[in-house]
């Protein structure tokens, strides 16, 4: 590798070098990394370590003192039916959103592989949602789905007559509403990555298959899909790891309600810590959630991500 020369071949500068500059030159690799590492340590690793302590004590703004309570905080979270339910909701919402985003994104990518007039403009429109704040997305969909005066309710009443359905609070519609907002925002993500995959498939593969008279479905199934499989994995992994953190659109669209029915894991922990001030329990819960997500991260990231996949 060419960069080996950079590492070993330290050529003394023309000027007489001071000892300091020799030292900084020799240790450039770690000096470049140090500030960032220190900042990460200070703002994520140190707080995490501190929170280990918080998870084992009584840390409640309403109760003075920090008595050691052992595993009580963890027990509280594990036994809390709302916590279990919110974990379930997180799983169901994230898996169904990501699945839909994948299917729609793949469809869009297939529709956009061909060059045609206006493709550039459509491309620009399709990526808009990626740059919108999730909170704004939630706000926009709340406006659309507003009962009685929103445009969606009006269109439905034109088609099916007036309904009593409340789209953001009624069950199961509230779940569809949340999924729709997520799909609106993140289908373009899948689309962009899958399109990059599709355009990098060598045309010769298709030509050879055409010559052999293979049917188009078989081409898709036996050539296209295997060729873009690495991209599919990366796209799905990225989305899934983000989807399990779902918070913003819940906060804005349903506020976790009605009751606690649309709590996600993140939302539950936020409520426990910052609305009910049970910091010990929220921290214990955060640790459980972190461990669950770390398992998912290790599995997906280590396996799939290289700086430049083949």
């Amino acid at each position, binding site marked *: 590798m060419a*960069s080996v*020369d*950079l*590492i070993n*071949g330290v*050529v003394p500068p023309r000027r007489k070098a001071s000892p300091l500059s020799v030292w900084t*030159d020799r240790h*450039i*690799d*770690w000096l*470049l*990394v140090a500030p960032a*590492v220190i*900042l*990460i340590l200070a*703002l994520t690793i140190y707080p995490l370590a501190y929170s280990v302590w*918080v998870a084992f004590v009584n840390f409640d703004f309403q109760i003075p003192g920090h008595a050691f309570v052992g595993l009580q905080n963890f027990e509280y979270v594990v036994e809390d039916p709302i916590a279990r339910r919110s974990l379930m909701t997180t799983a169901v919402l994230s898996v169904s959103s990501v699945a839909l985003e994948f299917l*729609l994104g793949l469809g*869009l990518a297939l529709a956009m592989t*061909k*060059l045609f007039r206006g493709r550039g403009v459509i*491309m*620009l429109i*399709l*990526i*808009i949602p*990626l*740059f*919108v*704040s*999730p*909170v*704004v997305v939630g*706000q926009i969909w709340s*406006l*659309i789905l507003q009962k009685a005066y*929103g445009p969606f309710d009006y269109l439905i009443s034109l088609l099916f007559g007036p309904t009593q359905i409340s789209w953001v609070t009624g069950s199961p519609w509230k779940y569809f509403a949340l999924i729709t907002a997520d799909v*609106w925002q993140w*289908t373009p993500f899948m689309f*962009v*990555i899958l399109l*990059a995959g599709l355009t990098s498939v060598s045309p010769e593969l*298709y*030509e050879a298959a*055409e010559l052999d008279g293979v049917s188009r479905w078989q081409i898709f199934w036996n050539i296209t899909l295997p060729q873009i499989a690495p991209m599919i994995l*990366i796209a799905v992994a990225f989305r899934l790891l983000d989807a399990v*953190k779902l*918070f*913003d659109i819940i*906060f804005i669209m349903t506020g976790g309600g009605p009751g606690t029915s649309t709590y996600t*894991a*993140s939302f539950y922990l*936020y409520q426990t*810590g910052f609305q009910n001030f049970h*910091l010990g329990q929220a921290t214990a819960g*955060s*640790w459980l959630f*972190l461990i669950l*997500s770390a398992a998912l991260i290790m599995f997906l990231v280590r396996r799939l991500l290289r*700086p430049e996949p083949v």
Partner: protein
Amino acid sequence: MQSGRRHRRRRKGALSFDNLVRILFLGLFLVFLLAPLYWTVVTSIKPVDDFMNIPPVWFPDHPTLVHYVAAMFTYRGLVGLINSAIVSTAATALSVVLGTMMGYSFARFNTGGQHLSFWVLSQRFMPPVAVVLPVFLLYRNYGLNDTRIGLILIYTVMTLPLSAWMMFAYFRQMPAELEEAALVDGYGRWGALWRVALPLALPGIIAAAVFAFIFCWSEFFFALVLTSRKAFTLPTIFRGFLGFQSSSYGEASALAIVSLVPSMILGMLVQRHLVRGLTLGAVRG
């Protein structure tokens, strides 16, 4: 790009059916995508009287900007906007400087091996809720809650994996020969980085900066927990509309437009780098 596919010979009938499906699907999706944006724009310029109309007013007869004024002043949108701009800009600058240094070190010296680079990457996926509580308590001890500095620091850390990995990928695909030539010419390694590598990497640095900026601009969760009356950012203002009455539809829409236009324009400028930005350089677009 994929010109090979255009040369494929197909029966005429199959071709037109294909195109029909394609156009229909694209058309429907574009409607799904644009209708909410259109509705938001229209709502933001509607007079209040139009809100409770059935059928809905698809375009107001007397468009007005009152909601923008109210959003900026009554709902303190202007303060949020200024805070957002300051925090996002500062955090982006810090993140890109530190991330570029780190990415360069990873790419050229393989510092820390795979472990360090993957550790940094894994920070990108960490659920914010897992760190926000201890960070909140830490900030309380140092008086950093509800300050822009506090938010800038946490946003820098949150965007570091993005900028470091984007630059890591960028430097890797940049040949090292020029930097080696600089070493031969008597520059130190810092000189080679400063005079040779950085100018060449400028397009990559700008792209990384834009993605970091968009992240900070859109971020809600940390801002919600770590700020309140002083350092609040634009996205946090939307919590005021939770369970809102019809009278504030206009202000909510106006704020939404104010928030999405800047990041939308920025994002479109770096469209070429989009795939790298979204996957932290894992996929070359």
